[in-house]
């Protein structure tokens, strides 16, 4: 294995982002004292109406990622299992359910919700998970049901989801006792669109060789487009980040020293092993330049009408990556393979996330047939470290890189 060369300078915006996230969580934790309401919402849920109505959105899934990164997943998952939940249940769900009871985790638990907003465009687990939390906290729950678009967006789906968007607004007006301000909604919609457009631009920078940042950085910078989507804060931050990345490109700074191989990642990160994985690939001069996960927060941009956000939102939220057919997912993966010009695909078969992991074998086959690039499948879990075997992972990654190098004629 090659020696570790000098590490490139860190991305400066990371500190600002940490500060912004701290402020966001402090505000959310202090909501009750400031007479503001808190809504828990699923990661792919339509957050813009909440922002427009001055409700603070909080994301149990982002919290789950924090729990994973803080390596606190095992204890919380085990606690949920003690409570009677199956170890086969998603680790975000398990750690959130346990955290609500024991007030554990890196920030001592999320602020108590006043309402729960559940959109099943990301998975079916969230339905039962949010029902459990609605019973536990005794708060109203709104469910937005987005049918899977196997082949496309039919008029029936459009009518069905649009009707629910109207019910959603009515639900919020009833819980808050306030009317929604259409002008404010338009403004938030415009900011959300702008934020997503900028986030896509951030991700696009890694098409450059060498890549100024990696998917591991994207996993981190993602938090803002998830939690502060629809705010000026996210827009301003991503503009700054783009400037910094553009400067890195200009200065020829690559995040992986001597970047020789470029890889694409599929599925959620292994939150508790980010650094380990990053180091392991870097040691092979391989950079994970892009991933299918972080682009989920901008992939539906084409369906959004920035001047008529509320009406176009139904389609945009229904047609996200996890809510389309496997053939379409494979097309997205192939597009990314070409755009980022990668030498290999690393697929994380994620024990927790069934909708993401289901279909990976087919995508793997399609990618191999259409591109011939090597594909690695690794088994792990995004939060629960008990499904991770370090020596097995090492062998797989090393063997995969041996094949990548051989195919690139550099073995």
């Amino acid at each position, binding site marked *: *294995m090659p020696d570790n060369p000098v590490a490139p300078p860190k991305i400066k915006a990371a500190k600002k982002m940490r500060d912004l996230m701290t402020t966001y969580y402090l505000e959310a934790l202090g909501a009750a004292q400031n007479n503001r309401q808190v809504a828990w919402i699923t990661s792919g849920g339509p957050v813009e109406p909440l922002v427009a109505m001055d409700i603070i959105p909080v994301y149990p899934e982002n919290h789950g990622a924090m729990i994973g990164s803080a390596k606190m997943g095992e204890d919380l998952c085990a606690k949920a299992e003690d409570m009677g939940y199956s170890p086969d249940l998603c680790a975000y769900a398990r750690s959130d359910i346990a955290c609500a009871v024991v007030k554990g985790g890196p920030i001592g638990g999320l602020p108590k919700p006043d309402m729960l907003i559940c959109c099943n465009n990301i998975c079916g687990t969230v339905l039962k998970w949010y029902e459990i939390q609605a019973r536990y906290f005794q708060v109203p729950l709104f469910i937005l049901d987005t049918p899977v678009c196997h082949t496309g967006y039919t008029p029936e789906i459009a009518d069905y989801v649009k009707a629910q968007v109207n019910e959603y607004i009515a639900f919020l007006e009833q819980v808050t006792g306030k009317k929604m301000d259409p002008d404010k909604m338009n403004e938030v919609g415009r900011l959300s669109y702008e934020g997503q457009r900028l986030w896509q631009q951030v991700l696009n920078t890694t098409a450059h060789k060498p890549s100024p940042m990696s998917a591991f950085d994207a996993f981190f910078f993602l938090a803002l487009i998830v939690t502060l989507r629809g705010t000026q804060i996210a827009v301003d931050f991503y503009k700054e980040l783009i400037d910094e990345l553009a400067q890195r490109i200009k200065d020829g700074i690559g995040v992986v020293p001597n970047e020789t191989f470029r890889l694409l990642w599929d599925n959620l990160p292994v939150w508790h092993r980010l650094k380990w994985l990053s180091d392991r690939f870097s040691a092979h001069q391989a950079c994970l330049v892009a991933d299918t996960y972080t682009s989920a927060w901008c992939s539906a941009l084409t369906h959004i009408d920035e001047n008529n956000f509320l009406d176009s939102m139904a389609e945009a939220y229904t047609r996200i990556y996890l809510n389309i057919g496997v053939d379409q997912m494979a097309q997205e993966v192939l597009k990314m393979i070409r755009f980022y010009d990668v030498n290999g695909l690393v697929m994380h078969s994620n024990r927790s996330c069934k909708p993401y992991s289901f279909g990976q074998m087919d995508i793997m086959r399609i990618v191999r047939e259409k591109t011939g690039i*090597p594909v690695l499948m690794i088994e792990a879990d995004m939060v629960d470290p008990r499904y991770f075997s370090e020596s097995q992972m090492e062998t797989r990654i*090393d063997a995969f890189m041996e*094949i990548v190098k*051989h195919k690139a004629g550099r073995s």
Partner: protein
Amino acid sequence: MIFAGIDIGSNTAKAALIKDNTLVGTRVMPTGYHHLKAGTRVFEELMQQTGLSRSDIRTVVATGYGRASIDFADKAMTEILCHGAGACFLDPDIRGIIDVGGQDSKAIALDDQGHVDNFAMNDKCAAGTGRFLEVMANALEVALDQMGDVGLTADNPAKISSICTVFAESEVISMIARQEKRENIIAGIHDAAAARVAILAAKIRIRGPIMMTGGVAKNPGMIAALEKRLNQPLIISPYCQETGAIGAAVLASRM
């Protein structure tokens, strides 16, 4: 010019020497706790056995789980690449490999030139590995090396439905309690393990001719169960256990 390969597996340490593209000798011993000690000893014993000394060896490649511990090796390479190279050395026509070792099972697909094209490995679970068979052999009080022959005498193979080693063991124990014939239980165990391994082969759609490598390739019961599952004969080399070490030596010769 002589080249050496050392394969530190979870159960056994193997060493192989090749000269002018022919095998000079191989050696196998238990790995034990200390990877480097095992690697050094198996290497030294093999040199003694072949009447060679360290200065005769041009390059050493280490592989297997303990590959990083072998500090005197010139390079560490994964067992996937080494099994590919080893199988091709033993039989250049090979296009698929099933390797079942102590704690790993894997399927490897080779391209038309005999290079590794793709692979699939078992997940963290031990079902379908040598360890699984060892646990079962203990529960059934049969020597591991006898297990294969005993299983072949089954008249009505039992059905093991558990996919987890721990659960499968309790299933076997309840069969013992029901006084199922030992040979039938063993045949059922082989079939359960073979089913797990066959999934790996299907995952990457390996082509024949297929060679089976690893210590478990010495078990005729497992071979029969796998051949049935894969619907084709398996090629078994007398060096099945040392294939990884041989491949490491082959790769050392190409450095």
